[in-house]
């Protein structure tokens, strides 16, 4: 066995590394690290994270020092040739299980099949703040690449040492190091045999240049595709534990309601039923789901309701309850908008209203919770397994080491599963029942008690000179959020503010965050300004735009669509919209058709150009763009959460319309591959162009300039007047 040397272990407190004081503890930790992983070599991005593996409370203090900002990842190369990647990132349909494995396979020169990804398990993977904001590709991707490249270099060094040859005589292929002089080879496992080396990624590691990629940059199929199409993949809602009970929670009839009286006796009398009542939480666990539902029905309960805002007055409510937003997140000032407006040739003021919408992932929230000797294990579908671990630890007053959260590849999220409600509820029930409990939210619960994309009011006042250059831009967003709030266009006088509001409905993250709202307003306003100065909408945008990457996607989308080449047929219209978000640049052109009799609007075709740096997996990128467009279509045309006095009125797919096969236009996708630029995530940005493109196409067809999202939940009939 190779002797431990200090050279293997850098000690640097600044990087959260072990100090000489806890060096002993460190080597102990290291031994346990390998006990868990097996011998071989391991490369960690943040060495500190290695301690996250340890469930020993004596190391808790060391753990606490780890900066949550740092993204952790480890790669372990075992004596059995198995390469295991540990990351706290999670798979929710964005295919990072595949794309992250691709970058590792690339740098290590191994086949995809030799890589196992261990993801989102708080006992096994390093801390990760969460899978959101399209951060996995730009931050985790490069770090795993570096870790893999570091491992690659280590393997070369070790082989060179073993053979006593110069490294330059060696090359790596197919999971082996080959001596080019005599064609002898050693598998990675043979090289790492008997070793226990732990190394931190070095920032200076050189990476395979994009032009030389062989695995990254290609359409490697989804790694667990077969599990999904055979029904074998276990989602959390599919799990079963021995002795498991089925949970159900009694829900309040409306937001803001509190318990007045409750009679649990009938439910408690049911055989096998466990009833939990703590404060306002009432839930049951029963041997089967039907019994659990019956037990909930058997509970007699009355509620105190408080008056709550309704959809009919939500936009007034948001304006009235807004913070003034000065100096807040997303606010920016430039020049003087008063002077700008005074100098304008044409002015345009408008108010846009954006409804709350639901993520409606096909797999509703679910969790299985199990207590064993004071240790809580919860399987749940969340974008923040470590966040849910925190929630559980504080809820049950446990140290984090006593809580394990395991995230199985989940039935999607779209920014809607940052939280762990089902996890906490299942754990409460399991604790009292002293048996594992599974809790799966119903569709109605998911539509009611999850959180929504925020509603918002956006006020824009803008001015343009007679040559079509923008001179003034004032933009206020109430409640939606600051993402995408800044204009990408050149305007000398700007005032931009986001005004937060205490939302009456639960609200949170969504695909593209507030940029779906902000860029909708921005790009609608741009179109109307173009029309005021009688310019082509594309030409007007390009005239006021410098950002070359955004220009490039506008031009590519227009070219692909045939913008300016043809005139739309009668009752058809063309529209364009685009923007930038999370390092991605997108532009969409849309053709719509309006039925003049019924007022029905149909999106006929769309062309979207998208650029997010170097493409890692073209097929999966295209799928993400497609998904964003289809989801964006729903929010653009008809999705809206309806509510009255704290009650959600449309918590079913029969009432809350989502895009279906029939709503889907012909979707053309143009991907610009910028191999010279770092890869950015793509799950979010391509959603932002579709709503304004459709809105502007409706304006083109009918002259009706809509200012709400959704645009046409009931068609256009009311706007078209009597036929």
């Amino acid at each position, binding site marked *: 066995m190779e002797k431990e040397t200090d050279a293997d272990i850098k000690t640097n407190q600044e990087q959260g590394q072990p100090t000489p004081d806890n060096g002993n503890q460190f080597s102990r930790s290291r031994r346990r690290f390998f006990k868990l992983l097996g011998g071989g070599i391991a490369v960690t991005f943040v060495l500190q994270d290695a301690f996250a593996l340890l469930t020993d409370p004596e190391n808790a203090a060391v753990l606490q020092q780890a900066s949550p900002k740092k993204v952790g990842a480890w790669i372990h190369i075992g004596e059995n040739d198995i390469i295991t990647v540990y990351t706290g990132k999670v798979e929710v349909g964005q295919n990072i299980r595949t794309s992250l494995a691709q970058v590792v396979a690339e740098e290590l020169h191994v086949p995809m099949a030799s890589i196992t990804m261990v993801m989102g398990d708080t006992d096994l993977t390093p801390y990760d703040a969460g899978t959101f904001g399209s951060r996995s590709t730009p931050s985790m991707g490069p770090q795993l690449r570096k870790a893999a490249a570091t491992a690659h270099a280590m393997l070369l060094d070790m082989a060179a040492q073993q053979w006593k040859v110069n490294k330059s005589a060696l090359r790596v292929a197919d999971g082996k190091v080959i001596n080019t002089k005599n064609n002898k080879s050693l598998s990675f496992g043979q090289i790492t045999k008997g070793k226990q080396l732990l190394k931190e990624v070095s920032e200076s590691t050189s990476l395979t240049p994009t032009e030389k990629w062989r695995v990254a940059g290609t359409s490697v199929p989804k790694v667990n595709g077969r599990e999904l*199409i055979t*029904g074998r993949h276990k*989602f959390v809602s599919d799990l079963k534990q021995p002795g498991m009970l089925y949970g159900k929670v009694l829900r309040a009839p409306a937001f803001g309601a509190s318990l007045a009286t409750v009679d649990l006796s009938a439910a408690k009398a049911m055989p096998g039923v466990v009833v939990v009542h703590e404060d306002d939480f009432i839930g049951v666990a029963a041997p089967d789901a*039907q019994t659990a539902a019956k037990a909930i029905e058997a509970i007699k309960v009355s509620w105190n309701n408080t008056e709550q805002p309704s959809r009919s007055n939500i936009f007034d409510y948001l304006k009235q309850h807004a913070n003034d937003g000065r100096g807040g997140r997303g606010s920016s000032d430039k020049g003087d908008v008063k002077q700008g407006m005074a100098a304008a040739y044409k002015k345009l003021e408008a108010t846009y209203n954006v409804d709350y919408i639901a993520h409606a*992932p096909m*797999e509703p929230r679910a969790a299985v919770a199990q207590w064993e000797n004071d240790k809580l294990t919860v399987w749940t579908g969340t974008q923040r397994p470590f966040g849910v671990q925190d929630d559980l630890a504080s809820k049950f007053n446990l140290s984090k080491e006593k809580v394990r959260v395991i995230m199985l590849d989940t039935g*999607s999220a779209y920014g809607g599963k940052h939280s762990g409600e089902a996890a906490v509820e299942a754990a409460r029930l399991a604790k009292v029942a002293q048996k594992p409990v599974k809790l799966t939210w119903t*569709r109605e619960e998911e539509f009611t008690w999850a959180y929504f994309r925020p509603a918002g009011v956006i006020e824009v006042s803008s001015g343009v000179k007679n040559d079509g250059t923008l001179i003034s831009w004032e933009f206020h967003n109430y409640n939606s959020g600051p993402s995408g709030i800044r204009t990408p266009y050149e305007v000398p006088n700007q005032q931009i503010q986001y005004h937060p509001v205490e939302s009456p409905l639960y609200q949170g993250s969504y695909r593209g965050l507030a940029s779906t709202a902000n860029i909708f307003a921005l790009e609608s306003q741009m179109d109307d300004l173009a029309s005021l100065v009688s310019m082509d909408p594309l030409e007007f945008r390009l005239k006021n735009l410098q950002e070359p990457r955004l220009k490039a996607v506008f031009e590519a989308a227009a070219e692909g669509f045939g913008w300016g080449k043809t005139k739309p047929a009668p009752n058809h219209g063309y529209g364009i919209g685009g923007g930038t978000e999370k390092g991605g640049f997108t532009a969409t052109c849309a053709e719509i058709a309006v039925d003049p009799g019924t007022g029905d609007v149909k999106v006929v075709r769309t062309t979207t150009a998208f650029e997010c740096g170097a493409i890692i997996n073209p*097929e999966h990128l295209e799928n993400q763009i497609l998904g964003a467009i289809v989801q964006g279509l729903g929010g653009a045309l008809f999705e809206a959460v309806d509510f009255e006095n704290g009650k959600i009125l449309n918590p079913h797919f029969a009432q809350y319309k989502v895009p279906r096969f029939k709503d*889907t236009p012909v979707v053309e996708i143009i991907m610009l591959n910028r191999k010279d630029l770092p890869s950015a995530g793509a799950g979010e940005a391509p959603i932002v162009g579709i709503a304004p493109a459709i809105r502007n196409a409706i304006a083109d067809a009918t002259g009706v300039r809509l200012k709400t999202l959704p645009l046409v939940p009931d068609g256009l009939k009311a706007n078209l007047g009597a036929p």
Partner: protein
Amino acid sequence: MELQVNGNKHTVSAASDTSLLYVLRDELDLTGSKYGCGEGQCGACTVLMDGKAVRSCRVPLSATQGKQITTIEGLEKEGQLHPVQQAFLDVDVFQCGYCAPGMIMSAVALLETNPRPSEEEIVAHMNGNICRCGTYPRIVKAIKEASNA
């Protein structure tokens, strides 16, 4: 009650008004069929009953008596994927894949009655199945591929 699933006969203890979906998932541990709404609105629970696509969340156990149920678990034969599964795999259709079993079962039912459907027929037949990840055009492509296979 008895239930014939994927060629096997099961005796189940659930009450006759229990939905087929619950019996499959909770009692027989055939969890390939998914819950998406429980209201016949999303198609995630689609299975075949005597070869016809049904929403198992809306089918009471009593209605399955004497019928042959096929679920996603019953498509693969001796490690050989059903041609529809193979086409979906080849096209690499899905994102999260939660809708996959329901989509595939609906597609199998379609191709059984109409081996060469037009695009309009595919869209009309599949419209009851929701893919919230928005993979619809890829599903249409896979069904076309399967129909040409």
